[in-house]
């Protein structure tokens, strides 16, 4: 076992495995699954114009997000990541099963904290609210991203690079977590077996995360492992039927409105706040924070 975990892996092989899951899963899981969801919606007589337009808006926001991600990615990954890796990092780790698994788990843990931060600071929620603003819950919602969603992961994954993990491996692991998370956006799958629901993030746990029911707010931040939520006090099981969306719905399927509504609301809030330091505080204080009059 130890021999196996310590056995050196070929970079090309590892990149190929990630490629099969991270990239190709779109074709062999996500698109077929979404088609299945559409059939289900049609069967339940829920396949209406709003749902279709909502799904289109989701994909459009993903396009916008992806563009920002690519521009940032090229800058951040090639420059910042490698600078950190070569200058302020622990000894560089080799590539074997153990380091690969640890890297994915650390990326998953970083995702937990990044996600939690997105919910609990003003500027984070201004962008992440986009993901939560759909009143529906299907695979396409997973692609609903806000304009600044690409920035936070960079901040949270840099420490992993400092721990000695190769920047490319960190990046691939992050995408791996994101793709795993994507697969959870469905109403088709109910609860899985107890051990799986205990350890892993599942569609049931992530439905709770998307709930606008009060007890479901700011719960189940996990990417792959739900145990992070269990350990850090943010776990909530799915009991009451989930009502999807945010507390103040946007009632729009216009991709531009969807993509920018968080930022627009945040700017409005900043205008209402008096005093420069209070305005600054609004960026890092919880989204519902208002200075005391």
């Amino acid at each position: 076992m130890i021999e196996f975990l310590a056995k050196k892996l070929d970079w090309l092989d590892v990149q190929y495995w990630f490629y099969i899951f991270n990239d190709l899963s779109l074709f062999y899981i996500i698109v077929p699954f979404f088609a299945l969801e559409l059939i289900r919606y049609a069967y339940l007589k829920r396949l209406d114009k709003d749902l279709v337009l909502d799904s289109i808006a989701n994909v459009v926001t993903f396009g916008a997000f992806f563009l920002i991600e690519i521009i940032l990615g090229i800058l951040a990954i090639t420059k910042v990541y490698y600078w950190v890796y070569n200058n302020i990092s622990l000894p560089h780790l080799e590539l074997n099963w153990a380091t690969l698994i640890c890297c994915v788990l650390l990326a998953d843990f970083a995702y937990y904290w990044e996600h939690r931060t997105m919910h609990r600071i003003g500027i984070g929620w201004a962008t992440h609210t986009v993901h939560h603003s759909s009143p529906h819950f299907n695979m396409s919602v997973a692609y609903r991203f806000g304009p600044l969603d690409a920035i936070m992961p960079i901040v949270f994954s840099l420490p992993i690079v400092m721990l000695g993990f190769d920047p490319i491996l960190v990046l691939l692991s992050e995408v791996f977590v994101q793709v795993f998370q994507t697969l959870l956006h469905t109403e088709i799958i109910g609860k899985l077996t107890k051990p799986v629901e205990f350890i892993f993030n599942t569609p049931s746990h992530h439905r709770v995360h998307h709930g606008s029911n009060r007890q479901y707010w700011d719960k189940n931040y996990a990417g792959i492992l739900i145990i992070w939520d269990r350990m850090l006090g943010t776990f909530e099981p799915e009991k009451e039927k989930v009502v999807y969306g945010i507390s103040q719905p946007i009632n729009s399927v216009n991709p531009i409105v969807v993509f920018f509504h968080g930022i627009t609301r945040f700017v409005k809030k900043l205008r209402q706040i008096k005093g420069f330091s209070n305005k600054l505080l609004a960026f890092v204080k919880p989204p519902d924070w208002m200075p005391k009059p």
Partner: protein
Amino acid sequence: MKNSTLVFRSLGIIIFLTGLAHLFSFGVSAGGDFPTSVTETDQETIQHPEATKPAENLDSNTQSGKETDYIIDKWKVVYNTDEYKGAIVYAIKKEGTVFNAYTYQYEDENGYTEKAEGTKILTITSFNASKGKGIYSVAFEGEKYKIDCKIALVDENTFTLSYDYYGYTDVETWKRQ
């Protein structure tokens, strides 16, 4: 949950996972064939962004093909360094899914030959008949290192073996004996 609890638990998780990774990277050796201190592949990825795309031509499965078997032979490399002047003949054998090269014979500047001990000095981990990758043992200032290397075919009787180990680079020409 108290903030201090969050910090302690989070630090615990990070230290545990990082410690495990470092333990398996530097503390555990996976036998002689694979080095534990080589991170050369990292550098390769930087220099060759195209390597992030899966390259089908380096599929290790192709090693089982007959077209790569021509490499099973004796190969001679001439050295002219301060450490060693002369030539070494290596024997490349197929072992399982990889090719291994063993020292076979030494030849000094005057042509005097001596049988070698048959030490394994190279493992070709992937090879597609024109290009390949491997792990090469080099001795440098009395220390032995196992480093990543690339091999490239020049013609059917010649290939080059190149490596770049923290700036210590070299290209060897292997001639069919």
